[in-house]
């Protein structure tokens, strides 16, 4: 009996102790959960804040490229004691793109090449609401032309063709562009209104007239044959205001009197075609022909230099009929190599030749190039340019200027 009582008391004691400890454990667990719950909520809030910051950063894209090159000139064209070869940085660019919203983009691209910090691109692109194939561009941007818009980091030869360098100096302009890229029909249309005299430093227009450029390209695809053909036309309708010269020299050398304030034509038409074919690794044939009238200052009549485009403002006193074309043959070999040949022609004054042309001589250039893509970021280019200028009294066969001779260029491009 005594034993039974003892067992009962022990049992109840154990149950109550167990119950007490259970309550204690549940209470402490609750406490721990509440504590961790609070911590998790705080972490959640921090993650949300960080995510919001990160999503802003995700809208900024930074890309760029450095083109470091070595050039070897034809020593017969190098003036005594001038260098026959050089290392130099052709382009050092960083591009910032901020995509604020779907269809709203800001682009800023400075160039840090040695000795000249220049703003290359600064524009905003906005998708026109309800017309998703249409965009409006405002600011400083490339002129709408195939070779101009084809990025220097992608181009298969070191420099653009001479006609493009001569008529679109610096490639960029300040203005407003309307662009249509069809999602249902394979059509591209560009219309740009611009100041028309951009020099890289000319912040505002020098006259009230705006220059207009338009380009229309249609694409045909033959998927079974692996062929794509883009073809189209473009035009430039603009003028240069005669500011200081009370006369104008026509293409044929005759003089017309004009008053200060007269608009001198800057008008031309072009036709272009690009053919892409999937033949043992891909190949392309690209060409463009442009002809028209350009009003230039007499100092800019000579073909543009090899290195870059001359950017000279207005003061036009010459009205030249010009013509030029380029033709590329590009062959991909595997995924890492490309072989390229380009033939281009530019005649700054089609109405005069021989001695009468003076320094405005025509030029045919054959350029051959080899590209090797070391990896996603590094490209090596070996480029050999062979210009052949028209010879006359002011530009004799032995004319001493490196841009008149053959040039070997080796470039390493690092792109990120």
């Amino acid at each position, binding site marked *: 009996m005594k034993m039974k009582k003892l067992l009962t008391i022990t049992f109840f004691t154990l149950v109550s102790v167990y119950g007490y400890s259970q309550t204690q454990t549940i209470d402490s667990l609750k406490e721990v959960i509440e504590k961790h719950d609070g911590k998790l909520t705080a972490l959640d809030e921090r993650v949300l804040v960080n995510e919001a910051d990160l999503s802003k950063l995700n809208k900024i894209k930074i890309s760029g490229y450095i083109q470091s090159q070595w050039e070897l000139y034809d020593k017969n064209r190098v003036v005594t004691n001038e260098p026959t070869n050089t290392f130099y940085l052709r382009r050092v660019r960083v591009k910032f793109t901020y995509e604020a919203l779907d269809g709203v983009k800001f682009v800023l691209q400075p160039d840090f090449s040695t000795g000249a910090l220049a703003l290359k691109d600064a524009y905003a692109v906005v998708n026109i609401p309800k017309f998703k194939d249409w965009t409006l561009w405002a600011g400083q941007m490339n002129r709408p032309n195939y070779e101009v818009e084809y990025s220097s980091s992608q181009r298969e030869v070191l420099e653009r063709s001479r006609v493009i360098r001569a008529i679109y100096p610096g490639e960029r302009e300040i203005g407003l562009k309307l662009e249509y890229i069809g999602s249902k029909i394979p059509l591209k249309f560009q219309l740009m209104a611009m100041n028309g005299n951009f020099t890289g430093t000319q912040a505002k227009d020098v006259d009230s007239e705006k220059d207009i450029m338009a380009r229309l390209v249609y694409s045909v695809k033959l*998927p079974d044959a692996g062929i*794509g053909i883009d073809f189209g036309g473009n035009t430039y309708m603009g003028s240069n205001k005669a500011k200081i010269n009370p006369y104008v020299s026509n293409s044929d050398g005759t003089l017309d009197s004009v008053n200060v304030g007269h608009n001198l034509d800057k008008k031309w038409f072009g036709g272009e075609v690009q053919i*892409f*074919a*999937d033949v043992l690794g891909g190949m392309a044939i690209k060409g463009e022909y442009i002809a028209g009238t350009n009003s230039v200052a007499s100092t800019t009549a000579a073909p543009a230099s090899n290195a870059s485009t001359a950017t000279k403002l207005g003061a036009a006193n010459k009205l030249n009929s010009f013509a030029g074309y380029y033709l590329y043959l590009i062959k991909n*070999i595997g995924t890492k190599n490309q072989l390229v040949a380009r033939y281009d022609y530019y005649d700054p004054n089609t109405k005069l030749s021989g001695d009468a042309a003076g320094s405005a001589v025509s030029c045919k250039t054959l350029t051959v190039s*080899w590209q090797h893509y070391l990896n*996603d970021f590094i490209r090596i280019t070996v480029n*050999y340019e062979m210009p052949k200028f028209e010879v006359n009294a002011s530009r004799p066969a032995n004319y001493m200027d490196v841009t008149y001779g053959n040039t070997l260029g080796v470039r390493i491009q690092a792109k990120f």
Partner: protein
Amino acid sequence: MKNNKILSIMLIMVVMATATGFSQAKITVKGSDTMVILAQKWAELYMKSNPAASIQVTGGGSGVGITALINGTTDICNSSRPMKQTEIEKLKGRYNTLGVSIPCAKDGVTIFLNESNKVQELTLKQLSDIYTTKIKNWKEVGGIDAPIRLYGRENSSGTYTYFHDEVVRADYAASVQSLPGTAAVVNAVKKDVNGIGYGGAAYAVGVRYAKVKKDANSPAYVPTKESIGKGEYPITRYLYMYLRNKPTGETKKYIDWILSSEGQMVVTEVGYFPYK
């Protein structure tokens, strides 16, 4: 003479550099997360019957796959949307080809709802209004009085672009929670009674899906083999494989197998629909 020498040197360098350029040890496949399960299954089965073949599959999103195709870091890009004109331009610029597009399956972009959600069907307009927050409450589309919580994909996803271009046709609302994969979207909707998401049909496990209709007067459809095959389901799309050039060698054999009845059976097993 000097010109000839330089040209000869350039030619020799090219030949040397290209001598190793043609060997292809394995096939790499990168891109669409929607297609990653399907692509893995294809690779697994193909390698089982072709032990010499080596196929490596990774996801990341259609955008990532297309970038890899352009950069030359993948042989095949899986994409749940067609390539954009700007992307084709990049391919042209780098490889001088337009790329090769191979539709390999069909998918119905599925609208995921929580199991407890009573909403049965939605029109394309309602979906657009929901994802632009013009419609903010389930009661506006026949559900309970509760706010709609939006889940979607990141902008590198082909499904994100496809849904944007074909359904939303405007900017997504800022309140859409972007998630890294359709599985994550399904998971989020599974846990959230007021959630809505979209994604590939193969992922719709543990959630309900809403019937979709073109407009208020059209019949509503769920994505089934029949409705997809007949083109009745309004958000039907192709799933693509993209290549830089026409396929040759092992890559061609692999793609031919994918398009064969054997490969297309895998499509059905995974939860998508044959391409024809």
